């Protein structure tokens, strides 16, 4: 159970406070309700490039990292298709320095051509390091456009193409800031060894003077229902074949979400899971195999991926994978197996509560989904999953007409 208090400032900023006296630290997490899905199709990768610029100095503070490090703090950020999330931890005595830094970069950035150019290069190197210079690194550059034809989930956070980053200009940067970064488009969570009135005072002092801004209403085209199976085959300089199968699933707020999550856990969470036991250990078809969800807010993807053992034919491995899907669609899951998954979820939720930064991030994300308190109802939602629901939802989800398959072949010779 995570107790918290919620305050909404006059400018629309939502502030959530969770007190945990067992730590000498305080964590600040600011979630901005903007991600790669909000980008123009010709300017992809922008939300993430912008995240880099948020560390390049703000209107009154030329250097973000310096003062934070001086206060014993540490910070980072991530961007995904839905959100851009900034976080820091500090010794609790210095919490106000976090407020000072975060409020100033919400107020405005110190935009400059030179800083933009350097960060464009840094992001280009990130693109090379993570997507081009690793075996199997470009998989998501291929899978997203295969699965999505209309919805902006068709491009990855890093961008559809490296050239999009290169073309970004200072005008785009400024427009993006003033149309997306605003108190009324953000959620601030403070978690740690700090009392609620203190946080409220700091939030009002530093954030209340920031005016609310006009945020364009989000109107994203929904992905039309997939009607037929899709396949793509590529050949790359990798040592082994790999196969990826993705299925369209419900959104994060759909009542079926937890059932789909349990399905992926039954298939591949832990060494006792079905895919590991049957396809890795017993039949020796894959060296690794996984089932997981993107977990995105709009309807996301259920993913099966596997690296195939040398000498095994891709088609044979695929057939066995399909046989496992058939089983989960037709044979009811036994009680002990389902209890195992629920125990694992329960344990994961308890372990996540040992860290204030984790708690701050999770509270912010649940507030974005609609209500931070739903974090405390997660376990009940998993407990409500039944063998009947699993079978029914798997039968609708894991069908060929809802599937895109990527055959990722090792180049021979």
């Amino acid at each position: 159970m995570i107790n918290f208090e919620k305050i909404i400032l006059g400018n629309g900023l939502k502030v959530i406070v969770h007190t945990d006296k067992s730590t000498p630290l305080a964590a600040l997490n600011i979630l901005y309700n903007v991600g790669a899905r909000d980008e123009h199709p010709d300017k992809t990768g922008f939300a993430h490039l912008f995240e880099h610029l948020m560390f390049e100095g703000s209107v009154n503070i030329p250097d973000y990292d310096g003062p934070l490090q001086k206060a014993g703090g540490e910070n980072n950020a991530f961007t995904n298709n839905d959100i851009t999330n900034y976080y820091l931890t500090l010794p609790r005595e210095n919490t106000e320095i976090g407020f000072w830094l975060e409020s100033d970069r919400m107020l405005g950035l110190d935009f400059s051509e030179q800083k933009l150019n350097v960060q464009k290069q840094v992001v280009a190197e990130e693109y090379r390091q993570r997507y081009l210079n690793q075996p199997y690194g470009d998989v998501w550059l291929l899978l997203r456009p295969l699965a999505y034809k209309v919805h902006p989930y068709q491009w990855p956070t890093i961008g559809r193409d490296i050239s999009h980053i290169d073309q970004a200009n200072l005008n785009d940067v400024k427009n993006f800031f003033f149309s997306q970064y605003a108190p009324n488009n953000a959620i601030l969570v403070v978690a740690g060894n700090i009392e609620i009135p203190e946080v409220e005072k700091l939030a009002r002092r530093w954030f209340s003077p920031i005016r609310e801004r006009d945020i364009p209403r989000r109107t994203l085209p929904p992905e039309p229902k997939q009607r037929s199976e899709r396949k793509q085959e590529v050949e790359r300089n990798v040592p082994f074949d790999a196969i990826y199968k993705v299925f369209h699933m419900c959104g994060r707020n759909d009542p079926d979400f937890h059932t789909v999550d349990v399905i992926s856990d039954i298939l591949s969470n832990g060494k006792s899971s079905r895919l590991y036991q049957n396809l890795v250990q017993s039949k020796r078809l894959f060296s690794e195999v996984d089932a997981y969800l993107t977990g995105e807010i709009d309807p996301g993807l259920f993913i099966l991926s596997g690296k195939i053992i040398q000498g095994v034919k891709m088609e044979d491995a695929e057939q066995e994978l399909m046989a496992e899907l058939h089983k989960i669609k037709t044979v009811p899951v036994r009680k002990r197996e389902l209890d195992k998954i629920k125990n694992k979820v329960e344990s994961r939720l308890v372990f996540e509560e040992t860290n204030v930064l984790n708690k701050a991030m999770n509270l912010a994300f649940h507030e974005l989904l609609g209500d931070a308190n739903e974090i405390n109802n997660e376990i009940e939602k998993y407990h409500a999953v039944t063998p009947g629901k699993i079978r029914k939802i798997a039968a609708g989800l894991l069908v060929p007409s809802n599937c895109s398959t990527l055959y990722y072949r090792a180049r021979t010779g």
Partner: protein
Amino acid sequence: MDPVDRKKIPPLHLSERIDYIRDKKVTLSNGIPVYLINAGNQDILRIELLLSAGSWVEPGPLIASSTNDMLNEGTKTRTAEMIAESFDYYGSYLHLNANKDTAGVVLFTLSKYLEETLVIVADIIQNSTFPEREFATYIQKKKQQFVEEREKVRYLARTGFLRSIFGQLHPYGREILLEDFTTVTAKQLSEFHCKCYLSDSIKIIVTGKIPKGIETVFEKHFGDWDLETIETRVPEPIPVVPADPSNIFLEKENVVQSAIRIGKKLFNKHHPDYHGVQVLNTVLGGYFGSRLMRNIREEKGYTYGIGSAFISLHHAGFFTIASEVGTNVCRSAVKEIYKEIKILREQIIPEEELSMVRNYLLGQVIRMFDGPFALAESFRAILEYGLDYSHYDNAIRTIRNISAKDLRDLANRYLGPESMTEIVAGKY
């Protein structure tokens, strides 16, 4: 409401004292020490069994890591599947880890399932059987992962660097070869297990909200073991054959980035200059605001990330700078790295920068003792070196007091460019 001055940093507070929760040691009837650290609000436990069973004592390549990885692949009374199912059923996590010096298991469990999970941990440590079929599956899987790893420039640079500074015959430098996967046998694992796991080197660290009477639970599962005495294969310290500093280029086709490693063999936690060199390392490349990051990423845009590290091992230590950079700027990046080393050796670190590094590091010390998991890691880091908490008191003292001049002297003593080994993997 008070008007705010946004140009001015709010008052900065520095903790005068950093408190850490200490361990309470109990000894089981056969001599196994159990260190209890009571911390946190959740009813969870982290239990670590630590053994001298790393690659330092293995009789051949892959033996230490494979033995450790296969502990849960079957015992005299439990199959691999039964073991996996039990841990999963109780929502616990078992981490197996073997490194150069030590090996062991870490169990994360809800306190209410301590008995149910600990009995299996005791079983896999004592009674693992290393069945042939599971071994064959494991080795095949590992071999594929190895072949995939070898495709990464980062891997080539890292292994090339260690081989170069320690030598291919040394346990810290030995690089894994493809044929190692065909020579290692299940029988070797069994023998290694007998010798190194049923051994009086075992230590147990327990952190979390410690329930009353936990000592009896450990006595029940571990107190009646009959312990062999470990014979270490290389009891004497590291062979004193200093590898010549060298520049090595490992070419790889079809890459868009090259990996760089620049560094040298150095000392470990027992050396009086250890903490000072850690501070120096932080200035150079040990945090986001470091000189390497500011110059090579934030000013030049050559890389997504660059950092340096000063790593302690039981019988040596090493210093290393690591980055992956665009192939077209690789030479310039290497040049800039040496330039930053030169500046550290010639110029005094400005007080403003040094005080930032001091405060940043003190914040890191607070994080090292925040919560049961961090406490466990920090405790293990002294326990395995036979050090006590004064190691951390000394660290804090050095962070607070070391002078800019001392740091320049350390840079001159230990970071001479002629003593560095330089590896580039990719295109150059």
